[in-house]
């Protein structure tokens, strides 16, 4: 791993293992320009990493498409009744 002029560690993006470790930062466009260049250079030469990147992106997009779990009306009623009873007993919060 290289170091910048300020002594910060700069990750390498030269092997498949290194590229895999940087996939998330690459997709969020958070890589330093030199690292991003190496990353993209690697992708141009390595179909395995392109496949890996595509499947990583796909699994994130499927995760994000999971619909929120809605509160069933009966459960919401239970929660509201619980809170009403507690708040009613306690009056103002201390």
């Amino acid at each position, binding site marked *: 791993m290289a170091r910048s002029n300020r002594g910060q560690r700069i990750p390498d993006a030269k092997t498949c293992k290194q590229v895999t470790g940087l996939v998330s930062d690459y*997709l969020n466009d958070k890589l330093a320009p030199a690292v991003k260049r190496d990353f993209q250079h690697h992708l141009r030469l390595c179909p395995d990493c392109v496949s890996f990147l595509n499947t990583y992106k796909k699994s994130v997009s499927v995760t994000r498409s999971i619909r929120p779990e*809605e509160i069933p009306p009966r459960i919401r009623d239970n929660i509201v009744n619980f*809170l009403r009873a507690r708040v009613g007993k306690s009056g103002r919060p201390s």
Partner: protein
Amino acid sequence: MSSVRIVTMPTNPPEPIAIGHESPMDRPNLSDRRRQSSKREAALIEGLKAGDQEAFEAIFNLYSPRLYNVAHRILGDVADTQEVIQDVFWAVYRKAKSFRGNSQFSTWLYRLTINAALGRIRRSKKNKEVEYEEFLPRFQQDGHHLISPVIDWSDTLDESYAKQQVQGFLKDALDQLKPMDKSVVVLSDLEGISDKEIAAALGITVSAVKTRLHRARLFLRGKLAVQLGHSAA
């Protein structure tokens, strides 16, 4: 020099900025909306601190759907989720005055919810988590993928499986994450919360959030690959 084995020449690498939460074009309207809603939220919090039950009810209506979703994704059980949510809102009502505004109000609510959910899992010992290693990518000593070619199943996924079925695979995989990792994925990928806010809600560093999120996503990708009949490596 690159140490990559050259197999075929070149395809353009996939572009970044594919999984961010908001595009720059959304920002003007978003910031207007945020200003308005944070003003309204500030008024509600003041009301809550003063013991105004209408403010409490408004806060419940505003946040309970999100907090229910978060707690349910972590716990996977309706009855447990109900207990967590009622305890969280009861704590919100009692402890409103202890909210000093050092973090966003939503961060405080997420922290209460996650702590309650994780505490419940610890006590119940019902955790279904599995070892990650089997589903993470593996490499040779020189850093190349252990198994080559890596199959790109991203395009065929939608053709071969119904959306609901694929989401079902992912939900099962989510349930097998370690509770803290699951919390990070739920807050980041399902709720769209920033790494900074997640770090504040979970009491860990931003760097730890990124590490957990990446490892959890690698695991989810591996589980999905295996489910589809491919290697996770």
